[in-house]
């Protein structure tokens, strides 16, 4: 059975929500259900991914007014699980465990638990404990380390990363939901303060508070909804436990495996994509995964962006909403929201003309995945 996104919901993205993650999750989920023209009684599955920083699925379902769920699952993990969450929801529906599944992500990513900062006193467990002395414990440092390696091997410049940030900021400008919309020039980018060389502040995602919900349904339910279905036509993951130091080649990410597999299993190719919502916790993530998913040869991503191939009128519109860099860091689920808007043809002034197929990637470094969505029944 085919499955589709039939409803989408979200809260405002802000630097201080003043709300619990539970309240925001319920809000976004309620909107997604209403968007589909369904009621909570039509929803029998719910899931999320989190790092102990969010509301539990059963609590969100309860808050939505549903006493019992046929399926409820919270996965421990980050952006690497986003595409997989929707694919898993689809698989759960296809397996007959339930008919519709809410996938949500709710976080006070700026005012509450915040990636990239660590408050003491703290004890660091597992693999990260070996890096306590160097403080090499936060994602901007891990990915800057990887980016340095790519720059060494392929000769990328600071400007090459800058074109990614600038392009996405330009895309965010007309997006009223975006957290950062002010125009950014290359001079602005280069003047950004250092975080961890080679990363400047504009290489890093914009952490925000907020929530997004995506409602996935089987085709038997799709007919009862009042939106244009956005069909899931392919999904692929590559999830590694290598960590950020032991991964053999940081000039490549998970996409080196997940990308080719996705094209092989769907029979599609990068040139078929109208929209690419590329997971962008950092600019370098876009660089490495644009290569991994086959949009560019290694070392060519900077030029690809500089020449406008990643924007309107180019080869593929990358992150028309501004991405995590400019719209905000809802841990990648906002990418799926944007893909749904674009494929419904309801993205307003930032609508990509005749958008039919969208790639949405998730995760970075050693782990991640991607989905392909279509507005045509597979």
């Amino acid at each position: 059975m085919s499955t589709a996104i039939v409803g989408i919901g979200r809260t405002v993205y802000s630097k201080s929500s003043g709300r619990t993650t539970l309240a925001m999750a319920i809000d976004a989920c309620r909107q997604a259900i209403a968007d589909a023209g369904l009621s909570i009684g039509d929803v029998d599955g719910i899931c999320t991914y989190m790092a102990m920083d969010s509301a539990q699925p059963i609590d969100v379902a309860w808050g939505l007014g549903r006493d019992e769920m046929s399926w409820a699952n919270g996965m421990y993990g980050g952006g690497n699980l986003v595409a997989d969450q929707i694919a898993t929801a689809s698989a759960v529906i296809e397996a007959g465990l339930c008919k519709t599944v809410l996938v949500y992500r709710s976080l006070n990513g700026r005012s509450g638990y915040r990636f990239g900062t660590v408050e003491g006193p703290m004890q660091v467990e597992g693999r990260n404990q070996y890096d306590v002395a160097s403080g090499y414990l936060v994602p901007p440092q891990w990915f800057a380390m990887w980016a340095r390696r790519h720059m060494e091997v392929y000769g990328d410049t600071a400007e090459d990363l800058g074109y990614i940030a600038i392009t996405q900021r330009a895309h965010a400008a007309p997006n009223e939901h975006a957290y950062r919309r002010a125009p950014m020039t290359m001079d602005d980018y280069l003047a950004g303060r250092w975080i961890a060389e080679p990363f400047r502040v504009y290489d890093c995602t914009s952490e925000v508070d907020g929530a997004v919900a995506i409602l996935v349904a089987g085709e038997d339910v799709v007919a009862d909804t009042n939106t244009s279905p956005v069909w899931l036509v392919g999904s692929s993951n590559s999830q590694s436990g290598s960590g950020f130091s032991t991964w053999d080649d940081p000039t490549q990410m998970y996409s080196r495996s997940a990308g080719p597999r996705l094209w092989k299993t769907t029979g599609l190719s990068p040139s078929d994509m109208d929209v690419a919502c590329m997971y962008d916790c950092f600019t370098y993530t876009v660089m490495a995964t644009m290569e991994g998913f086959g949009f560019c040869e290694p070392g060519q991503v900077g030029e690809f962006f500089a020449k406008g191939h990643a924007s309107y009128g180019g080869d593929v519109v990358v992150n028309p909403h501004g991405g995590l860099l400019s719209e905000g860091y809802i841990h990648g689920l906002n990418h799926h929201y944007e893909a749904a808007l674009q494929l419904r043809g309801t993205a307003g002034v930032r609508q990509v003309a005749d958008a039919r197929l969208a790639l949405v990637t998730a995760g970075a470094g050693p782990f991640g995945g991607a989905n392909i969505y279509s507005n045509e029944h597979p």
Partner: protein
Amino acid sequence: MTGTQLRPPIPLVDVDSAPWWEALKAGTFTVDRCQECRRWAHPPLERCRTCGGQNTLEPVSGQGRIFSFIVVRHQSLPGLVPPYVVAIVELDEQDGLRVTGIVRADPEAVSIGGRVSARIDPIGDSGYSAPAFELTPQSDPASPTHALICEAPEEGPTDGGSPTSLLGRPT
């Protein structure tokens, strides 16, 4: 931010990691090595991920090359004042055997491929110690010739955990 007094992080030691930290306290930089297939691996695991054999910590030379590095300019942890360099170092013992640590050098002098030597520094006043690196003077021979055994910074060797043999020669 909370009003909590900020202190440098310390390890939450587990059964796999305890001998590694104890060896460092005793002044020895060790890495797990499979007693069956002899492969080195870091971080420590009870069993070798290649062959399933028993891993045991063995001293390493501390000699290696910088695989990649960053210059931290934004403070994210107490006790570490930017700017400072953090690197992934590939140890000479085995291709792809990587550890991370601070490189105590001028950022301008650090480059990918540059040779470094490990030292063992205390982590604040926590009682723990960890490897850090220094640039190896270019006139030094490229290959390590001895295992790294340092004087314990504060405490003497602890019972049971301190290696007694020098097995760090590259294979």
